[in-house]
């Protein structure tokens, strides 16, 4: 399908959306959106959480039908009644949340619905595996095409999604935050593949909250605010500051809060960190992590860095007790936590904001209110009964503190935009008033303004004496926020860098193991697993 037309900015758009409106009940997600994608051009779509980016993409993909407005293909109006129509018209779409089939193999996931066929219409499994392997190799990911998708990490799931879209060889490639779960090299590989497609004349739509990526990949940018079109301009003619201003409709705040910035009331050094609030010793789980030990003091922010799949999230889940662990002890404020009992961990003052909000963080079908108060239902009840407006008041208070945007507290949380869902997860745990807070990728998929808010919030909590373990794949976040950086590699803790020594380079080196970093390090091999 790849049209080999030269990239010509004056070309008529391949696909365009004109004055598109779309509401869900009382919520107007799109209120006059415009977008035009041209052959051979990468087009960025930016906006705050809930601005309507994903909705716009779903309209383009034939998932939603617009209430008003038209979709044009090569200048002629078309109606995509379902995703098949859009695909038939040459659109390949990567949606925001990866939707793989856990029971099918990776190869089948890539080719679902269009498997290569041999005689009698039988699926040619060999050819399918070979082709899938080739696409994955192009993306630089040595995934086995025969393995089932179940159990793939979020990053790998995203890669498979990308492979699926790329292998379609479509005229239009639409990507909704494809990089949110990826690490550097994978992003680079993805970009080079997209570049190649673009050079062959494909039109590309790219959604991301990371401006560095937007500027690296795209030629044009459209800003969406509150579902309405704000501006479209060549990237060369605009600046990040200007874009952010257009997104939020006001002067942007500081984009990243550093702990030592004057915004934060209690900068480190002014207050020495308190007593150890979280102590982890010899934590192990067969095949996942081994002999992990560290401590986090009250008022301290400790970052846990590492490559995707290094086992950071597993450690967090082991500490909290949702996953079993084979050995080791976890102590919160002097109380030793029994393994496998999240409730005991919560009682001791531990909270975990998990990385996968849709699976682990939220019950999508339940209302915003129910989600926000779920871990606290017991505390909110009187004589064992939840009556009156206690739940509601509590939910509203926290939703407002985090500036969550929702239609009604009784709406299913699944109808919120990705970023706002993340805020509900944060609200849910912050409301428990934890002594130790573990946040796993707290800003994944969150827009730039909100991200700063989340950072400020975390810094504020630390200042209030909460011990914070921050797991993040974003180095600037790690370096900007943390008092100390722990680095994990292949299930082991390999380095500990105090703030002064934590540089991008040293963290990467520790994480990849290419060179033992200097300075105080915990990389020395320890004894056998204490199982």
């Amino acid at each position, binding site marked *: 399908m790849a049209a080999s037309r030269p990239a010509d900015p004056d070309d008529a758009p391949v696909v365009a959306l004109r004055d598109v409106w779309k509401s869900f009940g009382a919520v107007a997600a799109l209120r006059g959106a415009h977008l035009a994608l041209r052959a051979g051009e990468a087009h960025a779509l930016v906006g705050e959480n809930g601005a309507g980016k994903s909705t716009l993409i779903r309209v383009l993909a034939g998932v939603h039908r617009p209430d008003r407005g038209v979709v044009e293909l090569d200048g002629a109006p078309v109606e995509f009644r379902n995703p098949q129509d859009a695909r038939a018209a040459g659109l390949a779409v990567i949606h925001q949340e990866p939707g793989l089939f856990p029971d099918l193999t990776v190869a089948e996931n890539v080719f679902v619905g269009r498997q290569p066929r041999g005689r009698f219409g039988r699926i040619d499994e060999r050819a399918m595996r070979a082709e899938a392997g080739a696409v994955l190799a192009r993306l630089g990911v040595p995934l086995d095409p025969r393995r089932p998708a179940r159990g793939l990490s979020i990053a790998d799931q995203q890669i498979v999604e990308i492979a699926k879209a790329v292998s379609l060889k479509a005229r239009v490639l639409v990507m909704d935050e494809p990089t949110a779960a990826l690490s550097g090299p994978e992003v680079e590989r993805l970009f080079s593949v997209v570049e190649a497609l673009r050079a062959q004349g494909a039109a590309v739509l790219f959604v991301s909250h990371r401006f560095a990526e937007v500027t690296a990949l795209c030629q044009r940018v459209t800003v969406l605010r509150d579902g309405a079109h704000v501006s479209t301009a060549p990237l060369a003619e605009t600046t990040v500051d200007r874009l952010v201003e257009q997104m939020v409709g006001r002067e942007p705040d500081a984009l990243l809060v550093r702990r030592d910035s004057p915004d934060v009331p209690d900068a480190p050094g002014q207050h020495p960190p308190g007593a150890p609030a979280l102590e982890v010793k010899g934590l192990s789980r067969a095949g996942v992590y081994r002999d992990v030990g560290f401590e986090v003091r009250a008022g301290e922010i400790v970052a846990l860095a590492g490559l995707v799949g290094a086992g950071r999230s597993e450690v967090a889940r082991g500490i909290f007790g949702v996953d079993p662990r084979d050995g080791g002890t976890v102590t919160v404020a002097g109380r030793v936590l029994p393994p496998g009992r999240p409730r005991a961990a919560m009682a001791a003052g531990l909270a975990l904001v998990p990385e996968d909000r849709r699976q682990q963080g939220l019950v999508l079908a339940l209302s915003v209110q129910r989600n926000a108060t779920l871990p606290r239902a017991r505390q909110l009840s009187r004589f064992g009964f939840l009556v009156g407006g206690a739940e509601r008041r509590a939910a509203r208070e926290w939703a407002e503190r985090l500036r969550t945007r929702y239609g009604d507290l009784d709406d299913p949380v699944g109808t919120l935009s990705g970023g706002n869902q993340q805020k509900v997860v944060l609200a849910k745990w912050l409301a428990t008033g934890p002594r130790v807070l573990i946040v796993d990728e707290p800003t994944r998929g969150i827009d730039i303004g909100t991200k700063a808010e989340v950072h400020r919030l975390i810094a504020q909590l630390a200042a209030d004496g909460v011990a914070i373990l921050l797991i993040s794949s974003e180095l600037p976040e790690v370096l900007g926020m943390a008092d100390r950086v722990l680095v994990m590699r292949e*299930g082991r803790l390999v380095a500990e860098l105090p703030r002064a020594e934590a540089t991008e380079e040293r963290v990467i080196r520790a994480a990849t193991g290419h060179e033992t970093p200097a300075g105080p390090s915990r990389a020395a091999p320890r004894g056998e697993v204490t199982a």
Partner: protein
Amino acid sequence: MTVAGRPPERERGGAALLDAVLRFRALGLLVALVLLVAVTWLANSRFLSAQSIRDILLATALTLLLACGMTMVVVGRGIDLSVASVLGLSAFGTATVLADHPGLPVPLAALVGLAIGAACGTVNGLVIAYGRVPALVATLGTLYVFRGLVYFLAGGSRISAGELPRGFLDFGTARVLGVPWLFLIAVAVLLAVGEFLRRHRAGRDLYAIGSHEEAARLAGLPIPSRLLLAYVVSGTLAGLGGVLYAARYGTVDASAGYGMELDIVAAVVVGGVAIFGGSGSVYGAALGALLLTVINNALPVLGVDPFWQRAVVGALIIAAIALDRLVALRVAASLRGRDDAHVH
């Protein structure tokens, strides 16, 4: 902006092992089957007489047919509780047609049964795929409706063997090279469904839909038509089952096949088809059907007290799925153990 690099892929060994295990799970059923047959045979050598084997094959044929359709439906994350009622309706319909028109060629009457089944399946499919009614609700409803229809049509009447043409009844017990026809038909259906589910796009689509319906929608798979197909096939096979039922038992009344749906679901589940869709094979379901039939036939032969039989069947169903699960857990554990070797 993010941390660079990724660890080496460590799943390769896993996929192969998983493959082996999936095969082993079927093996587990086979071992159970062989053991059961051996024990019964030791207790009573007549259990393996030609007659007895033919009886088992005949009895399996019906369960097998229905289990094939049920597998398609369950793989797509549905369930068809109406199969037994459809079987009853088709059996009664076919028998009525044959009794009322003695001259009618048997294949034509069989077509009537198939058509009844297909029509019932279409109703199920439309309600589920296009009306978006959960399968359990819809087919529980049609379980009542179709059975009610048979009652309504049959009233208290019963069509007995004497009213059916000789040729039709002979077909019920006829054999080729000693193997009952009915069983051969069931096996042919089994192979066809197996091939369809493994090697054809529409079949794979069912697995995809059962695995993650929302993703299937986004991937542009024609979900409603695939589901419709599954239910129509399930209904048609139940219809065919009805024809074979009439041919084999000769006597057909309104309660033909009553309560059979749970046996079929049990066979499919015992055969390792995940009740929540997305995985399992029709061959496993076939083994499950065979195992349950053999259990049912072996217990009287073993002289198990009739009052104990039902309890034993229940216990065996539980044992089969528990065993299956334990094997899967062990394998998962050993997979992790292998990975552990890579964590240095």
